[in-house]
């Protein structure tokens, strides 16, 4: 989990990118959600020893990322920094799977190493796909798209409210945290006892805030129903984009394109 100050920075940065206006940004968000899902499903459906056939998906991601003008370095940094769980689990593969499957000169490569590399690849691609989706669409728009795709409205309202107040509460939490670290002298992390008090205080303020927001809603005729403006329009170009992406993704999934190219070049059949 990110630290509170960097989290704030990341959220704002991604939101800022979502406000850009590129070809990718203009595509209907429903299409983007569907394509991103398809992308992930294709990538994870490869066999665990697959490496070369997954690579074109990276190419696809880089092209979309470039078209959306998302800085590659930012994305790369986020992918590297992100939760290490998959890597921690994956690193055991070379240990448990020592079946040699490839010999390159003097080096014998075991199945475990191949599947570990494959896990790393999958990890980078899936995480990258999510980040490209959010950076080219924006959270609120994704929520709207999800409502149109059948998500319950009350859950959409919950997501929108949560997102609205994340910024407010992170700022509030950050202020309290700063006030505390100013008087703490051993490292970043605070003592558990202090944390309990801090969390309790923050929770209390949060509950009070919920009351005030409810009041503000009541003042403007709130009746338990939040009406979300839904103004998404699917253009013909969007449909075309969807079809093209699905075709490309399926093609890349079904054919091992790098191997085909390689054969073409090396002349080995």
């Amino acid at each position, binding site marked *: 989990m990110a630290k509170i100050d960097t989290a704030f920075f990341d959220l704002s940065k991604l*939101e800022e990118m979502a406000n850009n206006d590129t070809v990718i940004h203009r595509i209907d968000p429903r299409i983007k959600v569907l394509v991103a899902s398809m992308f992930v499903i294709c990538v994870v459906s490869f066999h665990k020893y697959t490496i070369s056939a997954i690579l074109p998906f990276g190419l696809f991601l880089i092209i979309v990322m470039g078209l959306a003008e998302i800085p590659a370095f930012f994305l790369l940094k986020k992918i590297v920094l992100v939760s290490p769980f998959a890597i921690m689990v994956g690193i055991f593969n070379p240990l448990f799977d020592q079946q040699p499957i490839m010999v390159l000169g003097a080096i014998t490569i075991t199945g475990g190493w191949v599947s570990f590399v494959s896990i790393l690849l999958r990890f980078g691609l899936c995480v990258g796909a999510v980040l490209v989706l959010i950076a080219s669409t924006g959270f*609120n728009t994704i*929520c709207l798209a999800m409502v149109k795709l059948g998500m319950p409205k009350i859950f959409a309202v919950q997501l*929108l*409210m949560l*997102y*609205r*107040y994340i*910024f*407010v509460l992170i700022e509030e939490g950050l202020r309290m945290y700063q006030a505390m670290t100013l008087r703490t002298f051993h490292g970043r992390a605070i003592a558990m006892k202090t944390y309990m008090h801090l969390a309790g205080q923050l929770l209390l303020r949060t509950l009070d*805030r919920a009351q*005030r*927001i409810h*009041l*503000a*809603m*009541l*003042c*403007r*005729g*709130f*009746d338990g129903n*939040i*009406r*979300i*403006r839904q103004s998404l329009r699917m253009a013909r170009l969007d449909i075309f984009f969807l079809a093209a992406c699905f075709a490309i993704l399926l093609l890349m999934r079904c054919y091992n394109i790098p191997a085909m190219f390689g054969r073409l070049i090396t002349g080995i059949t």
Partner: protein
Amino acid sequence: MSHHIVEVQNLSYTYADGTKAVDGISFLIHHGESVAVVGANGAGKSTLLLHLNGYLTPQKGKVRIGDFPLTKKTIKDIRKTVGMVFQNSDDQLFMPTVYDDVAFGPLNLGLPAEEVEQRVLEALSRTNSEHLKDRPPYKLSGGEKRAVAIATVLAMSPDILVMDEPTSNLDPRARRSLIDLLSGFHHTKIIATHDLDMVLDLCERTIVILDGKIMADGPTLEIFQNTDLLVTCHLEKPLRMQPCPVLKPKVLK
């Protein structure tokens, strides 16, 4: 419609923990009047305001807004008549974009789509914030947030505006443009505040509260000249009415 009167009669309110926040308050505010409610922290201003839009119902005494006495039945009509601007704009702007937020009230009134849009744009233009339409609220500055919060209330076309500390946390320029904005409104205004300089600009009448009781109710200038009263009520003369501390010694020389 002809007489937007706010009438409070002998109102008292005690919280569950025994704090007597409002203790026998009575006043009458006429159509188009602009009234400041001033007093120390914890004097009972906020509790009083919460009665004016029906969030709290009177435990003792009466509140009358326009033609309606405040009861559970009339709450909906009263909330349409009284627009409330909160002290913390973040509590008031809870929707994903400024447009959505301003449209929240009109949509709840069940208005047709075109009228909702028209009301939203009108409210935004009256507060000079059309350009913020598609921005998310957390990206706004304090002054912009306050302007939009007022727009959300205006979109309901209320007759009476109730404001809690409208100038708190604003930088001097944002404060000044807010004062200019409010002075252009012809609504009946009730403003709870510590900013007595703003009161001089906006309100011809002032009600001073201490410990849930009314200490004074009269023309603003008269009250602000009563230094003893202000000191008792934990207040201070507005800066503009104080002799200049930098120049004074020189003049005396």
